């Protein structure tokens, strides 16, 4: 392992228990608490897959369920292999074997990448425009089209694992164990309501869990410390059931929801035996509180898909939570304040931050001032216009933005980097709300869709409801939760 990609200590990773795993046949090491993605990044592996059509190199881009790129095949066994699994969601265990998909012969040298060279000849709706001549050749064309289909490989033998399902009836179901969900759970359970709190991660706390910054304080302590205390207090509440590693899969009418609880996927191979792998919970809740948070948006520029281009908030989680440096020379590109949190975290962990490229004229928030005070260079009113580096980013090009923000001008500044963090603002996770049949509204100020009308007994709280500031999140989560219990 490249030692210097780990920070000295992380509160969430047990650096005393080393775990060995294999990726693409190569033996690597990580620590207990790692995900496959964090362990790969710690081993300086960014290239993990190839894109579907042009076979362009793909790297880890996020750190949770929103990961679009790092989709891998887990296991080699014909009956136990699992295709298309997000590396960011696989908890590392002793004996894990994973491999990249959709590449041949290997992810480093992929024949299919020739498609990228011919990409002008493969426009959108390409299939419909061609392969029609001569007409009886279609069967042959189709054979090759089908060969290029799909990402992972299906198992070829029956599954040996055991699965279970169970009905669950509760007064309140809270989806998401971040700061809002925890506040709601506490209020619900203290109101003598039979409450269930679920979260897809292995511990509660969401992003607040590793938010240790002067700018984010609750009752005079760091928000992470305050929240840790709140989580500790939840344990004494009798009416509350907490289910971690449980992701909500469906939201049907009349508050009927399906959730998948992962029971053994994170265990060592020899500990999994004879245990239920996953349990499907069929939940009927009187009230549902959605607290699924928000996810960071990417920014659009040429070649923004290279390995090493990572969401800025994910870089922060990798450094603050997993103790993993996504790069040694990191540049950041943003249109909002969040990237500055990442810059400060990186700086505190001794990672060299090249600069922050910000499309705004100027910002005067506390967090930006804090970054300026640390001497972090900021390119105001500028944009990243291109990147280079084939299998991993090695530099970016920065240009000044015109007054109306539609064009760039002036000299191209080339900046060398081995990682680029991008932050295009935040998108509330309204997916569950819309799946339940809810209608959205649009907020013009920051271009987000927010939950609006719903026919069900449910509310959305926290950043999935459009609150992005800590004080607002706390205040509105309390207010809305109390309100739903009144009717």
């Amino acid at each position: 392992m490249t030692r210097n990609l780990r920070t000295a200590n992380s509160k969430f990773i047990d650096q005393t228990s080393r775990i060995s795993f294999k990726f693409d046949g190569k033996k690597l090491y990580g620590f207990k608490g790692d995900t496959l993605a964090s362990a790969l990044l710690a081993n300086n592996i960014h290239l993990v897959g190839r894109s579907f059509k042009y076979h362009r190199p793909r790297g880890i881009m996020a750190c949770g369920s929103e990961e679009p790129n790092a989709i891998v095949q887990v296991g080699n066994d014909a009956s136990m292999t699992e295709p298309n699994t997000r590396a960011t969601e696989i908890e590392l265990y002793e004996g894990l074997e994973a491999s990249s998909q959709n590449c041949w012969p290997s992810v480093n040298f992929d024949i299919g990448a020739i498609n990228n060279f011919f990409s002008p000849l493969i426009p959108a709706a390409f299939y419909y425009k061609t392969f029609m001549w001569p007409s009886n050749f279609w069967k042959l064309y189709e054979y090759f089209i089908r060969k290029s289909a799909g990402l992972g490989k299906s198992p070829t033998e029956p599954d040996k694992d055991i699965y279970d399902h169970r009905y669950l009836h509760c007064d309140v179901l809270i989806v998401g164990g971040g700061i809002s969900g925890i506040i709601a759970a506490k209020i619900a359970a203290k109101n003598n309501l039979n409450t269930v709190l679920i979260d897809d991660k292995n511990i509660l706390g969401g992003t607040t869990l590793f938010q240790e910054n002067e700018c984010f304080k609750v009752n005079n302590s760091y928000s992470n410390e305050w929240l840790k205390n709140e989580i500790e207090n939840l344990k004494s509440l009798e009416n509350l059931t907490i289910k971690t590693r449980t992701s909500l899969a469906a939201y049907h009418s009349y508050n009927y929801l399906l959730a998948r609880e992962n029971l053994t996927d994170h265990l060592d191979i020899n500990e999994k035996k004879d245990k239920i792998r996953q349990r499907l919970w069929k939940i009927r809740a009187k009230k549902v509180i959605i607290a699924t948070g928000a996810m960071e948006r990417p920014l659009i520029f040429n070649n923004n898909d290279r390995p090493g281009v990572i969401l800025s908030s994910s870089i922060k989680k990798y450094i603050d939570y997993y103790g993993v440096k996504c790069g040694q020379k990191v540049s950041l590109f943003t249109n909002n304040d969040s990237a500055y949190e990442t810059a400060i975290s990186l700086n505190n962990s001794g990672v060299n931050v090249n600069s922050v490229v910000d499309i705004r004229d100027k910002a005067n928030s506390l967090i930006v001032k804090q970054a300026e005070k640390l001497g972090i260079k900021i390119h105001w009113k500028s944009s990243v216009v291109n990147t280079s580096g084939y299998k991993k980013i090695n530099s970016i090009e920065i240009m000044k933005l015109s007054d109306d923000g539609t064009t760039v001008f002036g000299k191209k500044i080339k900046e060398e980097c081995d990682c680029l963090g991008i932050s295009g603002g935040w998108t509330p996770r309204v997916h569950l709300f819309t799946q339940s049949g809810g209608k959205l509204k649009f907020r013009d100020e920051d271009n987000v869709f927010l939950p609006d009308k719903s026919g069900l007994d449910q509310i959305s709280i926290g950043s999935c409801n459009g609150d992005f500031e800590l004080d607002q999140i706390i205040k509105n989560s309390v207010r809305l939760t109390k309100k739903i219990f009144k009717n």
Partner: protein
Amino acid sequence: MKNKYSIFSIIKNAFSYNENWQRAWRDPEPKKEYDAIIIGGGGHGLATAFYLAKKHNMTNIAVVEKGWIGGGNTGRNTTIIRSNYLWDASAGLYDHALKIWEGLSQELNYNVMFSQRGVMNLAHNLQDVRDLKRRTHANRLNGIDAVWLNTEEVKKFCPIINTSPDIRYPVLGGTLQRRAGTARHDAVAWGYARGADAMGVDIIQNCEVKGIKRNGDSVEGVETTKGFIKTKKIGVVAAGHSSVIANMVDLKLPLESKPLQALVSEPVKPIIDTVVMSNAVHAYVSQSDKGELVIGAGTDAYVSYTQRGSHDVVEGTLKAILELYPIFSRMKMLRQWGGIVDICPDASPIISKTHIKGLYFNCGWGTGGFKATPGSGDLFAHTIANDEPHKLNADFNINRFVSGDLVDEHGAAAVAH
């Protein structure tokens, strides 16, 4: 066609960074009057318009669509195409469609990716065996290529099926139609839209029909969200919403609209290269050219227009899938959705005139309309243009529910209803 697709057009456009492709169809405002209006811009409606223009020289016509074209059941089905129906009338209808499918990509200059990978129907009990063998014989008498396969032959044709005798509903054999298969559903709608548009048909999207204007026993036009449009002939091809249109002229149809669900898995490398249907346990599955397993579930028993079904329907289907294909247990489902299907009591469609002059209905396709798209469009166009049914759809008139001449295809419909 103005912008014919060919190898040359692809190379030419590559040089201009693919920025000069013409729109596949226009987006016109409705004219004041048309010779005919088709309500519903799904596959069947667009095909109807295409054949009205192509075969009957009716080019001053419009297709009005409430949402976007192909956004209804055309975009929601499991794309299975076959013609192995029991009765002569159905065999005639569905095989007429299958024959058009076989040359459709060339006819439209648009690759609909019609893939004749075969469709197998499994038998799980003795009654299934008798029914399916009977259907095979009936098919062959009608010139349809159906063969009976025993369990070993089933296993040989599709090796991933669990043919073990100790599953709850063991595979006792099956029928195979080799000419049957699948097609790319969106491409069908887009191909017909492009073809119809090129001949002058106006395709008007985001235009909901609010009422039908009548003068005595004839139609005069349609009230839409884009204003009144005058016409003497209206062809209704609104699938799940047929009764809603019929109610505008106080017409009752023998239909119930129910949610039908389907789902696809994450994409994987090719693992099943045919279509397997299993009515008794309700599991049918195929794999798309993108790699997703395409799975058809059942209908709910109640009327609903919500495009959402009940979870237990999907769960039952997946249980059956896993019994027949235990290797899929670790695969994850990517999407699940519902469409609204209008079901006739005899599980056969209606392609018919009505007692109102100039009003025609093409509906009641239930859970299996996609396969008939080209045939349905061709025959409905004939019916509208001549004010008389073609001999292939004469048996599918509304009046059969009064006369009692039903075309009972419950056994051949994929989804029990």
